[in-house]
């Protein structure tokens, strides 16, 4: 039977794993945002060689499985003489994976800004870079916050995969404790709750950000 009386036995290990999970999530999120913006801008505005590079990146990372990408970077890159720490591989693989989905989010949000905004910027004699950075992107940013929240949660969930390339994240610790103590129900229940709490945290933070951004936009429009 499940008994949570001796929680203290599992908790230190699981919390240590949680720290690794959070590290990978944060690192992955930062990389994902950067990759997404670069890829989206290239796909939208770059000349064709760069544009096709961006399209190839987006299609390859969206068309294959995150775990396959992780394994490819982990097992195949060393053959090309590139030796990376497992933790770095994890952040790169997950960040680039979510970044590819994020690129489409960014592109969609930029395209959703009304054409009149571009025309007004041209009328004010702004260059394309100026218009993009001062007029278009600030408005697009507000629209892309909720889908980014979903992507960050996806990233958090996919950090569980890194346990399969021997990183001792939360899932890895759970597996380890499971094979030594056989307290399957308790361990995996606690782990599910920890992931749930982490994703609730992301949801709340994103909702807060959304509210702040929306008021900023309303003020900018004189509303």
């Amino acid at each position, binding site marked *: 039977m499940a008994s949570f009386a001796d929680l203290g036995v599992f908790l230190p290990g699981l919390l240590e794993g949680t720290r690794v999970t959070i590290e990978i999530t944060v690192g992955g999120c930062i990389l994902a945002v950067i990759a997404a913006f670069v890829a989206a801008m290239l796909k939208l505005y770059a000349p064709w060689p760069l544009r096709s590079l961006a399209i190839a990146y987006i299609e390859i990372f969206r*068309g294959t*499985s995150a775990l396959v990408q992780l394994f490819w970077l982990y097992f195949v890159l060393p053959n090309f003489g590139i030796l990376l720490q497992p933790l770095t591989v994890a952040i790169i693989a997950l960040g680039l994976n979510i970044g590819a989905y994020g690129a489409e989010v960014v592109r969609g949000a930029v395209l959703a800004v009304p054409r009149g905004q571009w025309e007004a910027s041209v009328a004010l004699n702004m260059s394309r870079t100026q218009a993009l950075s001062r007029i278009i992107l600030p408005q697009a940013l507000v629209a892309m916050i909720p889908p980014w929240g979903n992507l960050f949660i996806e990233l958090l969930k996919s950090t569980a995969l890194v346990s399969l390339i021997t990183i001792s994240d939360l899932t890895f610790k759970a597996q380890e404790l499971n094979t030594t103590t056989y307290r399957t129900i308790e361990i995996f229940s606690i782990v*599910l709750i920890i992931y749930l709490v982490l994703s609730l945290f992301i949801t709340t933070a994103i909702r807060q950000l959304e509210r702040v951004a929306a008021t900023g936009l309303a003020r900018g429009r004189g509303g």
Partner: protein
Amino acid sequence: MFWNWQFVGQIIPLLAKASVVTIVATLLGFLIAAFLGLAFALGRLFGPKWIAVPLIGLIEGIRSTPLLIQIFFIYFVLPEAGISIGAMTAGVLALGLHYATYCSEVYRAGLANVPRGQWEASLALNLPTWRTFRDVIIPQAIPPVVPALGNYLVSLFKDTPLLSAIGVLELLQTAKIIGSENFRYTEPITLVGLIFLVLSLLSAVIIGFIERWLKRNVMRS
């Protein structure tokens, strides 16, 4: 050498055999997801409160925790409850359950888009609830959401490599075994990536095709 074509020729038959397992897992998983998802959506929208409220909690819980943990949970916990199942069954169940929660949101959107008048007309015709659902509401709710369901089919397909974690001999697990037996990971894992890329691009094309067909032949405004 980075790439050995002779080795590729040797391992392709093995990977082809493994891709059958991947495809079977995808289809069975999606079959569960499609039906269970509809049940979730109906229960959440039309069930009594004591069904709807726990169901919402369950759906949100499953959606915000990792699939890999759910696979482990089903694989390790069900035997403790006296139900012994194989790795493939556990994996397919976990995939089905996980994606059922995503599909239920899709169905929910479809059901919400059926005009109120359709309900009122069914009531006026004195149709029993069951027939209202079967013959009036569901046939109108599902065709518009088929493309969204198709996208989840592709996502589910891309998540099948997770089954390698409990030892199901699908594509990735086979590639790993080939890699560890021959000390060459480059070809098997790259090929697995390519197979996934080709199959998911192909299914995106097929989904687009089905979408247009449905728009022409099934949906009438």
